């Protein structure tokens, strides 16, 4: 039984009944219903309790403007909070419940707040809860309990979302009659067109009306045009798609709900899709939203927009009541009364605030024997949990005061209309301010920075015939602006019965016999319980800018973003201040037009696709050998390779000792590699690095420090001279991309006269580093035609040759301090050479080692890691690396001048030193702060911090690198590290090279 369902009419399929539940009660609706239309069909009036006062609330609108009917859909991980019942398409098995009301919607104890509502004016929380001083957290705990609408899911989203990047000549936002004409005209002129609409089908307001065009129902008239668009090769029609944001350079973001009308979660493919649309021209045909009138108790269930009554009747064949009382300040709303009567229901009366109207619709209403009270207002709605009647009174000619006695009328439905508000949201996203048009009684789009045209109701045009021609002309104009010549210049011939429409009256708040401050609540923003009295209070307290008023009262901050309330609120403020609406300000809308699913905005770039994972050619081998991973930039690098039963420390110690005592192998493929060529390559590198590369000969390598122009270390690495005018620069793994851009910046913008070219070859080469005293023997076993004798292949040499049958480049550089060969082969041989090295090294017990062991080994040698031992505030001298700076170069290399500034030359800068803990077994935490004395009180004078710290298995004690103020002149001093756990570790300042200080081991 659907008591409010009409026997015929509507765009619903009575042959497809659908079951659903609301707050646990089962109901039936039809295919084509929204949850709201189905609830109204079933006579459900109470759908929510208000947020502040717990007042009963019903459905007001029929689309994006709905402030009250906010529901929670479904349960568990698939639940969706805060949907508007008016926009939820009904499907079989749908489960929904209210997001408010405790313990139940019907018996809501929070409504007790309503009884003390007078104690809760806007801003009351700014004036209270301040004592005792520490108690705000306790107050807040209870305030938060009352906050919020629906519940977030508590598990991960099971659905996926995707994105399409769209380009078109003309984007038409809104598939109403104006938008359809625009799309047709543009497409016919040769433009590629996208037309989108948030509803299930195109047609816009025609879906809810009985207008006629060319002697036929308007909906039938556009049906042919819609199928023409759908079949057009240059036109993409997107329904269930909301353009929610309009961004710079004609970029529009729109979300398509692909499966929400079928069920809670998508059974296949994506649930929603984000269309990222770049359009040459945008046509906004987004329609208008009716504005309610504000009167006392206007929030009772059973008070609706006139347009909503009309839409429920005509589109969904639902009459949400029996006896309608309509109140209006304009002609258009009369159509709702006429339709209501046509549906066989009683129109109690129409209250028209205007003294008179010559319009066609009012005349038609009177001709249909509808009782019209001219010059009347609705003073107050009556009823408990639903409308039962209304108090009415005659008004002064301007509609601002009551002139006659109060009368009472009985009714169970009140429809109101205060005129229409064009949907100017998208146009204002781009920074243009809507302009108040007194004649239209509405904000219309202002001047724009973007290439868009607003047409139809969204431009304040209410006449159907005018909307049709405006749309068509805009479509042509947009196509022409995009370079397409129109083929048919005539707009379509339409024949619509001419009507006369009288002007609406500038009435927003209907007067009550008591002043606003004392009248029963007159709601402006129902979702946030903002009343007319609240707005007047804000003005009284000095919150007179519209932005202050909105922020003080929360007007417009709901999930409907004030689609119904903002303009009424502004008008009430203007009245309180004695200003015009235009002088009171404008209304700025932000994206999103309607709330938009985070998942859809994120798209596929979540989970493992959040950021690409980069693997070396040897990745699977590491995986198979049990590597634990370290993320280094996007790269996955083996961190260490634990064997069965080993702790991390045991594994790292084993790996370190293997390198020191025999041989280890490291996958160094991730280091950045930039191929540099050109006659000026050496000069360029010498300008970029702190040292000189002018005399570097083919076959030789040199370590370099790269500084930013502020003198601070930015990156480091070895550069090899591959041949005349040809170099290979190694960078840190994380710095590779930034270094390449840095080189290009200088080469292209500052020194274009230098002939030098860069190619990133990081991914082209796989690097297997063999390190340890047995490294040479491993290479011999591996088989190479390179002469490995120390005299022929020295430290800091590189050689090309054949290794294990592959063409390879072998670099004798070392980050461990041991004899080291870095074997580079084309990446697709990486796995092969790695396994070959592993096999050749077997008799030396060659041990794969990861980044952790690498860090320990290099720290034993005092080698820095950029980004760990430096932090963007360290100069080469700070790192005790003055040896890598050549101050005598002819060219003032990048960063050099900054090294001479007063702060960079001062005496007590932090300098890199070593630390030895008093207790050899204690490993300092990296990041521990250093003080000179424990006798200081907080704040203590910190001298520096620990940058690197490990247990050195070869030395049998802990080692640390640290930066300490003037540390190089403080060798032997004892310093202290007070730790977070309350302990303090004493340590002695020592040189930063702990192992093989003379560097003999890498030179053998």
């Amino acid at each position, binding site marked *: 039984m659907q008591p409010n369902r009409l026997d015929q009419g509507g765009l619903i399929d009575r042959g497809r009944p659908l079951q659903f539940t609301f707050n646990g009660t089962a109901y039936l609706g039809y295919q084509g219903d929204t949850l709201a239309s189905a609830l109204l069909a079933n006579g459900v009036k109470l759908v929510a309790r208000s947020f502040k006062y717990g007042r009963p609330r019903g459905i007001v609108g029929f689309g994006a403007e709905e402030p009250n009917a906010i529901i929670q859909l479904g349960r568990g991980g698939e639940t969706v909070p805060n949907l508007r019942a008016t926009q939820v398409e009904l499907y079989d098995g749908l489960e929904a419940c209210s997001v408010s009301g405790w313990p139940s919607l019907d018996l809501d104890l929070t409504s007790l707040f309503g009884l003390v509502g007078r104690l809760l004016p806007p801003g009351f929380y700014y004036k209270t809860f301040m004592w005792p001083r520490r108690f705000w957290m306790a107050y807040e705990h209870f305030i938060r309990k009352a906050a919020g609408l629906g519940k977030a899911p508590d598990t991960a989203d099971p659905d996926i979302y995707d994105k399409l990047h769209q380009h078109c000549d003309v984007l038409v936002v809104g598939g109403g009659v104006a938008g359809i004409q625009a799309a047709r005209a543009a497409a016919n002129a040769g433009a590629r067109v996208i037309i989108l609409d948030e509803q299930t089908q195109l047609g816009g307001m025609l879906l809810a009306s009985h207008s006629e065009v060319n002697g036929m129902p308007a909906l039938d008239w556009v049906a042919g045009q819609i199928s023409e668009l759908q079949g057009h090769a240059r036109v993409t029609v997107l329904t269930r798609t909301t353009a929610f944001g309009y*961004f*710079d*350079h*004609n*970029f529009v973001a729109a979300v398509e709900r692909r499966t929400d009308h079928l069920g809670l979660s998508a059974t296949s493919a994506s649930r929603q899709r984000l269309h990222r649309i*770049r359009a040459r021209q945008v046509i906004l045909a987004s329609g208008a939203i009716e504005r309610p009138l504000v009167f006392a108790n206007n929030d009772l269930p059973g008070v609706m927009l006139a347009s909503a009554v009309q839409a429920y009747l005509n589109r969904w064949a639902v009459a949400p009541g029996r006896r309608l009382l309509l109140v209006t300040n304009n002609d258009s709303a009369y159509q709702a009364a006429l339709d209501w009567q046509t549906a066989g229901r009683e129109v109690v009366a129409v209250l028209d605030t205007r003294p008179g109207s010559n319009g066609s619709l009012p005349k038609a209403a009177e001709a249909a024997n509808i009782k019209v009270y001219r010059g009347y207002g609705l003073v107050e709605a009556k009823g408990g949990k639903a409308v039962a009647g209304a108090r009415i009174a005659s008004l002064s000619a301007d509609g601002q005061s009551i002139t006659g006695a109060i009368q009472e009328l009985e009714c169970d439905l009140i429809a109101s209309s205060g005129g229409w508000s064009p949907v100017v949201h998208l146009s204002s996203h781009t*920074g243009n301010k809507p302009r108040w048009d007194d004649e239209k009684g509405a904000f219309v789009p202002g001047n724009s*920075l973007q290439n868009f045209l607003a047409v139809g109701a969204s431009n304040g045009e209410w006449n159907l015939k005018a909307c049709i021609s405006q749309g068509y002309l805009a479509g042509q104009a947009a196509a022409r602006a995009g370079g397409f010549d129109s083929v048919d210049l005539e707009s379509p011939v339409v024949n619509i019965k001419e009507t006369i429409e009288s002007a609406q009256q500038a009435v927003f708040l209907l007067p009550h016999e008591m002043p606003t401050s004392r009248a029963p609540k007159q709601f402006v923003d129902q979702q946030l319980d903002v009343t007319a009295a609240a707005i007047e209070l804000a003005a009284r307290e000095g919150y007179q800018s519209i932005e202050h008023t909105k922020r003080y009262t929360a007007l417009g901050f709901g999930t409907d973003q004030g689609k119904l309330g903002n303009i009424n609120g502004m008008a009430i403020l203007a009245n309180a201040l004695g200003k015009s609406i235009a002088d009171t300000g404008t209304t700025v809308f932000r994206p999103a037009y309607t709330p938009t699913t985070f998942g859809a905005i994120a798209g596929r770039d979540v989970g493992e696709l959040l950021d690409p994972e980069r693997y070396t050619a040897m990745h699977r081998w590491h995986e198979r050998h049990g590597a634990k991973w370290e993320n280094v930039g996007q790269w996955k690098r083996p961190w260490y390779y634990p064997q069965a039963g080993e702790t991390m420390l045991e594994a790292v110690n084993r790996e370190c000792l293997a390198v020191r005592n025999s041989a280890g192998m490291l996958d160094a493929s991730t280091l950045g590699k930039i191929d540099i060529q050109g006659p000026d390559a050496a000069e360029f590198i010498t300008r970029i690095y702190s040292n000189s590369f002018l005399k570097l000969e083919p076959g030789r390598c040199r370590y370099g420090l790269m500084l930013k*122009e*502020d003198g601070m270390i930015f990156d480091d690495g070895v550069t090899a001279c591959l041949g005349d005018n040809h170099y290979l620069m190694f960078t840190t793994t994380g710095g590779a991309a930034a270094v390449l*851009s840095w080189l*290009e*910046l200088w080469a*292209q*913008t*500052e020194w*274009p006269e230098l002939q030098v070219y860069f190619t990133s070859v990081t991914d082209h080469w796989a690097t297997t580093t063999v390190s340890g005293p047995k490294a040479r023997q491993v290479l011999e076993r591996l088989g190479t035609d390179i002469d490995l004798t120390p005299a022929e292949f020295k430290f800091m040499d590189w050689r090309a040759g054949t290794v294990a049958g592959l063409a390879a480049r072998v670099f004798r550089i070392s980050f461990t301090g041991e004899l080291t060969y870095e074997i580079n082969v084309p990446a697709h041989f990486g796995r092969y050479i790695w396994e070959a090295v592993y096999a050749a090294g077997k008799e030396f017990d060659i041990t794969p080692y990861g980044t952790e062991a690498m860090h320990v080994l290099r720290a034993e040698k005092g080698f820095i890691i950029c980004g760990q031992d430096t932090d963007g505030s360290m100069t080469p001298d700070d790192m005790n690396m003055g040896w890598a700076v050549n101050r005598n170069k002819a060219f*003032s290399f990048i960063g*050099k*001048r*900054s090294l*001479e*500034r*007063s702060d960079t030359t001062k005496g007590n800068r932090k300098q890199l030193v070593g630390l030895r803990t008093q207790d050899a077994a204690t490993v300092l935490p990296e990041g521990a702060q250093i003080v000179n004395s424990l006798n200081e009180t907080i704040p203590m004078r910190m001298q520096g911090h620990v940058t690197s710290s490990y247990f050195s298995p070869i030395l049998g004690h802990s080692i640390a690198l640290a930066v300490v103020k003037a540390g190089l002149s403080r060798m032997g001093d004892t310093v202290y590290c007070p730790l977070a756990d309350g302990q303090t570790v004493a340590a002695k300042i020592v040189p930063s090279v702990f192992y093989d200080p003379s560097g003999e081991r890498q030179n053998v």
Partner: protein
Amino acid sequence: MLQIYCPYCREMREEEEFSYSGEAHIKRPDNPEALSDEEWGDYLFFRKNPRGLHCEMWQHTVACRRYFNVVRDTVSYEIHETYPIGSQPSKMTDAALGSTD
């Protein structure tokens, strides 16, 4: 969401293909050592940061990797023109910029 014309690729491309690289037409001093700390600090850190037309550099990072200049309005975000490194903005923009340095 900017859409930028790359003067090398000769196409309008999405902002995400590019990297912003700061104010354009800043010449590195020929002889840094001759500058005072103040003059050097000026070069290092002080920028025009205009409210209005701004000459700036972008790099077409994911494509040709070329740096180029853009005249963009920092309020409207409208791009007036893009032009290669080493050249100057057109006379029209020049007039709008109100300076020629």
